[in-house]
Structures are given as C-alpha cells and as structure tokens.
C-alpha cells in the first residue's frame, strides 16, 4: 500500500508492527518499524538525507546477458533510489545525451559490450 505524503502525514493502521518505507526524489530511502496499539497515536518522523539522482542503464538486455541485478541489489542495500533504462533493442532504446545529463550519475551496465560499442558502425558489423 502506497500513499503520497506532503510534509506531514497521519495514518490509521491495524494493531501490530509495520515497516514504513519513505522515498522522495533526490533523497535516500528511509525505513522505520512502528508498533501500533489500539486507540493510540505513535509519532514517527522521517528525515531523508540528500542523494544524487541515478540512472541505471542495462545494456545487457539486448543480447540477453543482463547483469543489472548486482547493481539493483547494491543500490537497494544502500537505500539509493534510481531510475532504470533497459536497452531491449539497440535500434530504438538508446538514451539521448539530454536524458543522461538530467541525472547526477549514470551507471551503465554493459557485461559484454561497452557504452562506446553502441554505435552505428559497430552494430552494422555485428548484424
């Protein structure tokens, strides 16, 4: 269940222990465990540290050699948010420089090629 919060929030939840996960763009993800008791209000504030915006490019997809899960796991473990850009088809899915520049950082996963390899000349030699 996901809700959008503008600064302050107040939620009715069934009794028990819940894990709340809060995420906002350009900030690290913060999770907290809260225990709810009947009829009581618990206070749980979230202070989200700044983080770079990250694009995760998966170039392994177009030759079915994706290794993107290593990067996902590492970023998830470190509570970083990221967008993903899978290159399923090299003829249509290539990001423009404007797309890449919009992010603070780009992680380009290229298990069997390199970002430089994805150019028209090399591709025409492959196919």
């Amino acid at each position: 269940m996901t809700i959008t919060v503008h600064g302050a929030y107040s939620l009715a939840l069934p009794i028990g222990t819940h894990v709340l996960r809060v995420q906002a763009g350009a900030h690290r993800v913060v999770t907290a465990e809260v225990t709810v008791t009947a009829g009581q209000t618990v206070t749980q504030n979230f202070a989200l540290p700044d983080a770079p915006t990250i694009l995760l490019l998966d170039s392994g997809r177009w030759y079915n050699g994706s290794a993107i899960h290593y990067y996902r796991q590492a970023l998830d473990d470190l509570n970083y948010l990221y967008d993903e850009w899978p290159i399923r088809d090299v003829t249509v899915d290539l990001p423009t420089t404007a797309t890449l520049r919009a992010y603070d950082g780009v992680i380009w996963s290229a298990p069997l090629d390199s970002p430089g390899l994805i150019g028209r000349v090399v591709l025409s030699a492959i196919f």
Partner: protein
Amino acid sequence: MIALFSSRGPSPWGDLKPQAVAPGVAILSSVPGGGYRKASGTSMASPQAAGIAALMRSAVPGLTIAQTRYALTTTAAHAIVTNYPNNDYGWGRVDALNAVVSVLHTGSISGVVRRGDTGMPIPYASIQADARVGTWSNAITDEAGRYLVYGATSLYTLTASAFGYASHILFAVPIVTDTITLRDVALAPLPAGRVSGRVTDASGTQALTASLLIQMHR
C-alpha cells in the same frame, strides 16, 4: 477469437475439425541467436497444446493418447461462441490447469472470505492450505472474496489472512478426489491505532513530498 488465417472444419470426411484451439496470433517466442520475437500460426499454437500434453503426462506417467486427448478436449475453455463443439474452435481453447487437474483427479477447497462484523467479502485475502503430509497450496481471494485451492486427497489446515484482520485457522479441512469442499471464512477486523509524523530533508526543516509505503505487517 479465431484468427482469419485459421483453417476451419469439417474435414473432407465430415469429421469435427479442429478438435481444440490454442493461442496463435502474435505470440512472444524465443528465436535463434538469443532474443524474442512475436510470430503467428500453428508453430506458435501447437507447442502450447503439446506442452499441456507433456505436463499431463509428467503429472500422470503412463497416461494414454486417448486419455490425453479426452482430457485436453473435455477441459477446454468455452469462449466467444456458445455452440460447442463447432468447426471453428472444436471443443474449445486448451486449458493447462484444468487439464492437469482432471487427470490428477485433484480435489479443491473453495469458499468466500468475509468480514466477521458486516459480512462484506474481503478481496485479496490470502489463503494457505497445509496438508498433514507436508504439501501446501495457496490462493488469493478475488473481488467477490472467493478463493479456490487445489490439492491431493488429505486433511488440510486452512489459514486465512488479510491486512487489517486477525488471521483465522480452520483445522482438518478435507480435500477429496474430484470434489469441491466448501468452507467460508469470517475474519474479525483488528482494532486500529494511528501513526503520524513529518517527512523532511536531513536537516529536519524542509518538508518533502514523498511516497510512503506500508511494507510489512506482522
């Protein structure tokens, strides 16, 4: 819907054709050289029928060709038109789950999960059936609160749970060959409390617009 390019019956000798149908238009498939592409025709449809036949024979080794054909056609889904069998769809569209269930002579438990107080159905409740011999099966209720779990003949412990409700356990629910055991479950809503607070940047001063996900409950 039957494809425009699909052959129709009857055969020149008056037999019903086709006997059954399987999806065969724009089916995603793996292709040589590594990759996926969509294609149409019997090359796409017949592997699905063959796959279901293989599934049935791995569930019941020694199933004869006649038994396999009988199960495939009798369990086929009837859609679009009402006059089955016919010379466009045969006995219907092959159905893997129903075909395998019919040859295994599996039984099932079915029922409706409702609120204990108002009697309203609870959609997306989870149902787990644990057999005494160690196998288990699970299901999620549909919009009408209805569930269906398949299993081999045994006694099952049935656990119904849903977010915001106390879980409920039914003991010794039988599954009998080719039979549906009906068990409705009532779940009591849990009392509620409140959680409130602020979402800010690291300094604690700047309010943020964020998404809040209720991730786990126990």
